[in-house]
């Protein structure tokens, strides 16, 4: 089936298809409403779109394969009165990540939210349960918001070898690991460093801000993170990390994508340090390593000449299962694709609403 590209923006969901003239918009759903997270479930072809209506709260919609028949389903939500104090009980303010469960759990999907909570559905989003084992971690008192008022879960990695084994990334609450389907958790992230903390707390794994974490599907213990203070890699499923140095331009950014079959190949979109959050000197580029971070290439072909002030958020850089097709959307509403692993980029649209997330689908 032909590849589709789903683009979640501040003003709805755009679907694009690849044709003779390049990627072209074929649908626009949820017109006017921010789309905060997208999932194409490769197990059954289902589409999921998380919305943030602003005034009217977060919502979840799903569609049969193809994305032509959306229906609203229950969004993840905290139990009524959770925590004992009804006035202070938490409520979901953003669905920030969605992930498919393992191949042996066909109805299972996971959602990460702001505030930093993980939810599980066993019926394709029809109903949700809070993963209390993570919510009740004592170190939660040390977590804090990164770009939002409250901490949030932006990365959920289910191990393809074991559906009970998972990694969760929290801004700012570190890297969390479970081997029993979320019942118990250990704090990974040893080796990450937080320059925004006082010296004695910089290596505290519970205050780290991994902006985005990805795992290579063919080598699930091999992880990359674009962290607030640099790029790090893990070879043991997220417990221990080592910093990658020598990135061109900058090691700050939000997004990272890893090749589906080659764990040493990853893409980043650098930005100027956290004080500014714009491309360095207006140079909008993609950087790529093909040797596990020992060396990097700077990929510019097809991208705008300086000055360009596009910023690519956490979920707005994706690689397709073929390992060659990439898509990237920016905070200023530009969308590019590449058919050759990032060597050259083609502008699909320069005038979309601000882009939060992109994902490939069939």
């Amino acid at each position, binding site marked *: 089936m032909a590849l589709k590209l789903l683009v979640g923006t501040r003003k709805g969901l755009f679907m694009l298809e690849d044709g003779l003239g390049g990627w072209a918009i074929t649908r626009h759903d949820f017109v006017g409403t921010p789309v905060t997270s997208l999932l194409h479930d490769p197990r059954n072809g289902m589409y999921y779109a998380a919305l943030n*209506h*602003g*005034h*009217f*709260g977060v*919502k979840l919609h799903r569609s049969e394969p193809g994305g032509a028949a959306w229906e*609203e389903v229950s*969004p993840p*939500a*905290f139990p*009524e*009165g959770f925590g004992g104090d*009804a006035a202070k*009980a*938490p*409520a*979901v303010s953003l669905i920030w990540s969605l992930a498919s469960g393992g191949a042996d759990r066909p109805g299972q999907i996971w959602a990460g939210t702001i505030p930093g909570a993980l939810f599980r559905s066993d019926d394709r989003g029809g109903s949700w349960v809070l993963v209390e084992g993570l919510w009740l971690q004592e170190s939660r008192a040390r977590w804090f918001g990164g770009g939002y008022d409250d901490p949030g879960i932006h990365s959920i990695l289910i191990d393809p070898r074991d559906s009970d084994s998972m990694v969760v990334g929290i801004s700012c609450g570190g890297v969390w690991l479970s081997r029993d389907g979320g019942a118990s958790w250990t704090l990974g992230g040893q080796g990450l460093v937080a320059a925004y903390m006082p010296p004695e707390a910089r290596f505290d794994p519970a205050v780290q801000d991994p902006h985005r974490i990805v795992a290579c599907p063919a080598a699930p213990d091999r992880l990359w993170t674009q962290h607030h203070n640099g790029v790090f890699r893990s070879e043991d499923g997220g417990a221990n990390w080592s910093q990658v140095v020598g990135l061109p331009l900058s090691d700050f950014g939000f997004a990272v994508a890893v090749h589906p079959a080659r764990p040493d190949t990853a893409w980043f979109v650098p930005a100027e340090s956290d004080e500014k959050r714009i491309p360095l000197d207006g140079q909008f580029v993609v950087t790529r390593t093909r040797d596990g971070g020992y060396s990097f290439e700077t990929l510019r072909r097809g991208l705008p000449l300086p000055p360009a002030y596009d910023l690519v958020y956490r979920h707005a850089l994706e690689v397709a299962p073929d390992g060659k097709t990439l898509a990237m959307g920016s905070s200023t509403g530009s969308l590019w694709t590449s058919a050759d692993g990032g060597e050259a980029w083609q502008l699909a649209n320069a005038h979309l609403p601000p882009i939060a997330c992109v994902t490939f689908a069939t």
Partner: protein
Amino acid sequence: MPRITFTAHLRRWAPSGPVIVPGTTVRLALESVFAEYPALRLYVLDEQRRLRKHVALFVDGTRAALDDAVPQNAEIYVLQALSGG
């Protein structure tokens, strides 16, 4: 009984025009509507049954809270606050 009107932004989930429903507080009047329009509930209230932060309630022209009493034949408006969103 109070009469309740919803902002046009909620038209997909709410009654298309004003409805007269039983209820001695704003919350009870809303519950009467939610009984007929269950999908509307989570657009007006959060999962803790609190009024969403950027939804504004008015009773007879005055900003009101969920648990305020409503007079006989009151006019209730459920509107989008201009904060947020």
